[in-house]
């Protein structure tokens, strides 16, 4: 079967910034495919190219077999999108927002009414459909945007950070809903996120950083590839254990907030050895299975959500980042 999204050496350069740096991947029909990466990785830029909103600098992208540059109209007919930033008209009601969308996609009036009821029911907003969107909470807006993206039954749905700023409960509801969609309508879902826990919901994820795909596999395989366990060692006050551990076991301890992070094959056995070798110089040791965060760390040497944004990144973020934080 042919892939529903085919991307080949796609590249986008803004003035001097290389936002997307020659990425290639394919997404199969009915798959939930995720882009996982930190701020400024190029996730939204990729989505905008696939949705025909931006022209790529070079490379090629086919959606449902159609070229995004040469046949944008055909591509647009097969996609739905939920933007990272709010794109509802907040002076209109929920129902009016949906209605305008239906008009735009040429749904016949009766079918449109029926679909509106369907999607409003699905995102649990039927009771609020006559309310102005400006009075909606962030979660309600997001749900409404997802409903709208689905109104015309697209083959491919793009979700750019669909659950950003939502509480865990709403996030869970939206995910249940997305899984349901895939089951019932076989919709292909392409989403971006920088929440690790969320990426676990995808069939496959591409880890993207600085516009490049660093790894692409199922969440389980990615973690498996890392192998073994992760230990977090908190040294006793003043002890600088990193060089000692590195020398003694040939490991590469990575400094993290709590102390040092080690990656070992058999965590349980290693804890005993470590405790014996460094008696008194260690405050605590904790053991866990690798997460996608660890995968990202081992691929890029950084945690995905570093609190300290570099000055350069911050400049890139504004004013967009500025706007985003408001919702």
């Amino acid at each position, binding site marked *: 079967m042919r892939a529903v999204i085919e991307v080949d050496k796609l590249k986008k350069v803004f003035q001097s910034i290389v936002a997307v740096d020659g990425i290639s991947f394919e997404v199969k029909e009915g798959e939930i495919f995720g882009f996982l990466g930190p701020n400024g990785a190029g996730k939204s830029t990729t989505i905008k190219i696939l*949705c*025909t*909103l*931006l*022209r790529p600098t070079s490379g090629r992208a086919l959606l449902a077999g159609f070229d995004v540059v040469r046949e944008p*109209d*055909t591509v*647009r*007919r097969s*996609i739905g*999108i939920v*933007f990272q*930033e*709010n*794109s*509802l*008209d*907040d*002076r*209109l009601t929920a129902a*009016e927002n949906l209605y*305008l*969308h239906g*008009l*735009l*996609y*040429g749904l016949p009036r009766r079918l449109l009414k029926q679909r509106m009821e369907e999607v409003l029911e699905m995102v649990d907003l039927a009771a609020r459909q006559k309310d102005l969107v400006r009075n909606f909470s962030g979660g309600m807006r997001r749900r409404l945007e997802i409903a*709208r993206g689905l109104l015309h039954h697209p083959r491919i749905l793009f979700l750019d950070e669909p659950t950003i700023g939502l509480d865990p409960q709403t996030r869970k509801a939206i995910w249940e809903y997305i899984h349901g969609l895939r089951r019932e309508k076989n919709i292909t879902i392409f989403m971006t996120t920088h929440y690790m826990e969320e990426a676990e919901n995808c069939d496959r994820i591409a880890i993207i950083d600085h516009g490049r795909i660093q790894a692409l596999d199922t969440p389980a395989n990615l973690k498996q590839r890392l192998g073994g366990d992760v230990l977090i060692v908190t040294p006793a006050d003043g002890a600088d254990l990193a060089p000692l551990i590195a020398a003694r076991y040939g490991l590469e301890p990575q400094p993290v907030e709590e102390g040092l992070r080690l990656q070992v094959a058999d965590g349980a056995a290693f804890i005993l050895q470590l405790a014996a070798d460094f008696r008194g110089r260690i405050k605590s040791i904790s053991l866990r299975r690798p997460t996608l965060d660890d995968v990202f760390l081992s691929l890029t040497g950084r945690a995905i959500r570093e609190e300290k944004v570099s000055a350069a990144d911050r400049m890139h973020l504004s*004013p967009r980042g500025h706007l985003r934080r408001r919702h």
Partner: protein
Amino acid sequence: MEAALRAIYTVWYRETLRLLREKTRLIGMIGQPLLYLLVVGQGISAAMGFRGVPAEIPLNYVQFMYPGVLAMSVLFTSVFSGISIIWDREFGFLKEVLVAPVPRWATALGKVLGGSTVAMAQACILLCLAPIARVPLDLLMVLKLLGILLLISLALTSFGVAIASHMQTMEGFQMIMNFLVMPLFFLSGAMFPLHSAPPWMAFLMRLDPLTYGVDALRGVIYAGADPRVTAFLVRYDLVTNLSVLLLVTAALVALGTWSFSRQD
């Protein structure tokens, strides 16, 4: 083609929905012209009379200004509606439309029609206020005036869309207002007659398309008045005025839709 009509209708419909939703906006929109008519007009004529007009001609400044105020309110509302497409692009609705399977030019045209509808709603309210300015109107005149105002507003909304297509943010808005829109307004003869202007200004006034709009409005309003009034106030005949207006409108609508569909 069907997709284009859909887009035009949808974008227009959204604009009118918003207008109906925000009744305070309509009231706010007539505030400024009313202020001009009542305060500026009355004030000026009370303070210094209307010296532009020869003493024997029966006309006061408010009557003179009324068509100018009509043109003014349509000018500001239209340009503003056109430029507001920047907000739509930045904060929502338009993003939706840009990924829909509809042509860009149709989206721009829908915006132009929507903006004109808003401006025309405002014009209708102002026409109801004609008695306050002691300007007598009959139904036929009202229809003619609305026709002229529609041309003006289509031209200027398109002008706004064209400007917006070259602006990334609302930051340049104030500059556009001061260096483009205000001069258009002052040079149109809405506030003072062509006769009293010095030659260099009279020349610029002749270049301002809005001059012909204002003149056409005066031509209709004073058609039945004292011939001395008409001779004094109306510069060109209706055919000239309408030809210029039609040409300018066609050119600006083309420019607006073209600029909008060209942007990245």
